[in-house]
Structure formats: C-alpha cells, structure tokens
C-alpha cells in the first residue's frame, strides 16, 4: 500500500505539473480539492481519471462517482488496489 501511495504521488505530481510540491510535503491524507489542501480543480480530476485508466486500467466514466475516491491520495490508492486491472 505504501508503495502504491508513493507511486500515485509521483504520477499525480507529474501529470498535474505540481512542480513546486515536494513528495515529502505531499500528505497522503490531505484533502486534494479543498482550499487548504493541494487545491486541485475540475480539470485536474479529469486528468487523474485519465491517469487511473492509463496506469491501472480503471475506467471511471462519470466524474461524479469520483467524489469519494478523490478525497486524498490514500483514498485513491485504496480504490486502485481494489479495482486495478493492471
């Protein structure tokens, strides 16, 4: 699980161009979309959906399903672990 969390942090940082964010400061439990967290927006959600499909073979057709999944890196990792196809 920790390995998957670290992989996801790296992948998210890369696809979202979070250049100024160091992986050490990237808290796996911090809210991703709240103002106090990393502050991602709706285009970022869509980009993470593409990432999940590309890296893990998970297809999420409706971004609305993603609300619970995209709370934090940890919730994404849990979802990936349960649903990954590759």
């Amino acid at each position, binding site marked *: 699980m920790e390995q998957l969390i670290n992989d996801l942090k790296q992948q998210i940082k890369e696809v979202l161009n979070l250049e100024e964010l160091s992986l050490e400061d990237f808290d796996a439990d911090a809210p991703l979309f709240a103002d106090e967290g990393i502050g991602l*927006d709706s285009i970022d959600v869509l980009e993470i959906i*593409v990432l999940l499909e590309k890296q893990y073979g998970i297809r999420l057709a409706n971004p609305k399903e993603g609300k619970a999944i995209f709370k934090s890196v940890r919730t994404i990792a849990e979802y990936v672990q349960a649903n990954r196809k590759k």
Partner: protein
Amino acid sequence: MISVLSTNITSPLGLTTEQNYQAVFSGSTALRRYEGMWGLPEPFAASLFSDEQKAALALDGYTFFEALAIRSVREALSHLRLDVTSERVVFILSTTKGNVEEINTPRYYPSESASIIARNIGLTTTPIVVCNACVSGLSAQLLADHLLTANLYDYAIVVGAEVQSKFIVAGFQSLKAISEEPCRPFDMERNGLNPGEAAATIVFGKPSPRLGDVREGLYWNLVDGAACNDACHLVSPSPQGVGLTAAIETAMKGRDKKQLATICAHGTATLYNDQMESKAIEKAHLSDIPLSALKGYYGHTMGAAGVLETILSMRATDDGIVLATKGFMEPGVSGKVSINGEPRPIDKTAFLKVMSGFGGCNVTALYERGAGSMEQGAGSMEQGARGKVKLEKVQTVRFSSAEGTSPSDIYKQEIGNYPKFYKMDILSRLAFVAAEKVLSNSPLKDEDKKPALILFNHSSSIESDRRFLDTISRAEDFFPSPSAFVYTLPNIAAGEIAIRHQLLGETSFYILPEKDETLMQQILEATLGGTEARSVVSGWVDAESNTSYECELTIYSVKV
C-alpha cells in the same frame, strides 16, 4: 451600428439561409449518433456533412474547411454587387480549430487558411482571424462593428466556419462534455453538447442602391454589444453568470426590452452552461423574454455558431416566429427563463444574441430591424455616435527565445507563488509573465474595473495542439488529455490573465498573418472607441514551440 447586407448558412441542413431556416422551422435536425467514427472508442452525437454533401461542396486544391468557408462567402456575395477587391473591405474569419488536422503543413495556421479563403474570393486586405473559443462568431461581429464604426473599412465579410475532427471530439469527450444522444438545451435530462460543422457568413456595411439590394429600406442592424470576462475558471462559467449578466446589461443599457422578440441563448446543453445562462438572464431582468436555443438542430458549430444562430434569429424574427428549442421538454435550470419546445408567434423587431465560452468569455449583441445605418434617424434603439480615442503607452514588456529569456526563469526570479503557472502551456506562460510584469509596475486605476485585454499572434496554440494530438494519435495508447486540450484554444492565455488579475472586461484573441503593428493599433483604437474601458493590455504573444517564442505586451491608457 452596422447593417446586415447579406447572409448565408451552409450546413448539413441546407446551402442557403432560406433552406436552413425552412429546415429548422419545420423541426429538422442534422444530429445523429456516430459510433466508431474516426476510430474514437466512445460514441457521440453530432451534426456532420455526409460524404455526398462533402463531395458536392469540395473544391480542388482546398481543404474541406477552406472550401466550406469559400462556398458560404460566395453564396452570400452572390446577392450583392460588392467590389471585394477594394481596400475598404475587411475579411474576418471566426473559427476555433480551423485546419487543425493540417498541423504539419503551413495550412494549419489560421491566418494562412484565412488568406487562402480571402484570395479565392478576391479580397486584397489583410484577413483577421478571431479565435475566442465558443464566442468567436459573436466577437467577430463586434469586431466588424468596431472597424466599420471607426471608418477603417466600409464593408466587413464575417464568416464563421468549423469542421469536426477526431481532435475536437476527443478533446470535448476528455472533458466529459459530449452527449451521445441529441442534445437537450435547458432540459432536466441534458447531459452534454454535440459537435457540429457549418459555415455561416454575414456581410456588413452601409446599404446602398449601387449594391443591387432591393429591400425597401429595412435592414437588420447590429446596434450594440459587449464582451465581459468571468475571471473565474478556464472552462467552467461563473456559477452566478457574473460576466454574462454584465455583458447583457451593457448591451441593453438604455434600451427597451419590450422590443425583444427573443434572446437567442448559447444553450450548449452542458449542465453548467445552461444553468449559468438562466441565472444571468434572470439577474438581468429578462426572464419574461422568450428564449430560443438552437443547438438541437446543428449541435455546437463552435466558430460558426455565433454567426449561424444570429442569422437564424433574424430570419425567424422577420417571419414573426420564436424558434422552438429542439430537445427541450422539462425545465432543468434554476434561473427563471421563458423557454419552449414549440415555435411561438411574435411581432417584435429586435433580439439579443448571447454566447459564453472557455477562457471565461461572454459576449452579447443586440440586433434591431429598421432603417439602414446610412440614413438619418436610423433605428430607434440607436444611441449617440462613438467617440474617437487615443491610446497612450504606459509601459511595455518584451522578451523572446532569441534573447534567451524564458518565462519560467522570469516566473521563478520575479514572480513565484502561483503554482498554476506550471500547468500552463508556453503561450499562457508567456502571456502570464508579461502581464504580471506590466500590471505590477503600472497597476490599473481603480476607476477602471473593466480593462480590455486583446492579444494577437500568428501561431495560434500550435504547441498545445501538437501535445494534445500526441495523446490521441496512437490507437493502443489513446488517452486524450483534458488539461492539454484546454490549452488548444489560444484565448485561454487571456483567460489565465483575467483570472489572475480579476479583469472583468473584454478579452479577445486575434490571429494575423504577421505582426502588423499598424493593423493591431487600428483594431485596438477601434475597439476601445466602442467600449467603456479606460485601459487596455495588448500585444503580440506568439509561440511556435516551447523553444521558439516572442512576446511584447503593453499597457495603454485610453484618452477620449
């Protein structure tokens, strides 16, 4: 105010304005479902020309996009005796992606397409391409109004054209914005837009018997309009419709809403757009004006939409009809609007066209039928003539790849603390950094809440177009990137600046064959003469690639 002298719509529903109006009036739609089209894994509904129609419209030596625009302009001109070779005729092309599939040839450049089309028609002046995302077709008409009112030209040929492609459809699919069923504007069940292809032309100018026009003195006139940015988000409208409300209020200032036959809505049938429009219309106190949304007939024809929907609204109003909003059954928006799934009779002489698009832009235009603009006591909605303005340079910032200055270095050394910078493509980074510098040294005056932001270039969004294309060109590795797609509209660069500095005025992006400073200055002065802005940020922001770019941005104050 300028008068409409002639029009054409060339679409899958017909080759003339009249054929298109009759098709729409009788409830026809060109929308159908496509599966496996262009190798796209997901189905979509769209309004596309059939192979037979394409073959009939094709012209040897031209791309389909160019041929479509040429056909539309030529048909519109066939009703007039206009000397198009005159230096008093300007050609304005409105498109979002033009010849994007020609990215590896010079034809990719929108100004090159415009020049090819203009040469075929016989035009001799420098063509101007308006690339303002979904609002382009209405922006192009306002630009024509500015240029003609400033007496730089006597006639403007405005053509909006769009052909659909794997590029555009995959992009909107990656944003989850496309419906696989025919779209349902303002309806409870609406779930996205349908792409559409069409070309539509309006020839504007001063009516004159020598043009061979025999309409007994009644013309459609573009009497006013406005452009206002939301400064909220790159692809989502302000939930309260801030920019659209302001643009409607500006266009309607001092006018009597009782004259309005209809508000022709943007009505893309995405959840957010239609909801936002309903809020803006209610806030502008126009809830009781019949609303018509026309995407259920043609889909979203993007660069053509503003021109096409304006023409249909003129024709319907002439006919005493408010067109039905095809696809609408049950209201699905919270703002109060008067919308109907059936055509309704009406006896009025004006209408309002509104559009909103990516980059936060909102544009409105008010049209009224009346005497032509040459005659005394023209249209009853007409207000005083526009003042001439002079622009005074306050400050200029310049840098280019040739000097070895990179926007990232400038950002790191002089700006910082805006992590979104790293998400931007090269074009937005250039514009952002330059705007940051001119605006930090010469902040806008408090009294100017709505400064204009007008950017020009040659290379459109070529670097982002290449990047997005790379995510869709291999079937085994087909992962269209939504964030790359967003930047395939050059006016996103203006949107980034608007968000950062909360600029709520006009934001426009024009593409020219080259950095023509005289023409740019003329466009600026003409535009500022027609708006209330007291300052403008404008300049040349061009990126041929990540390593080859040029940027010069100036802040001007407007002297009346």
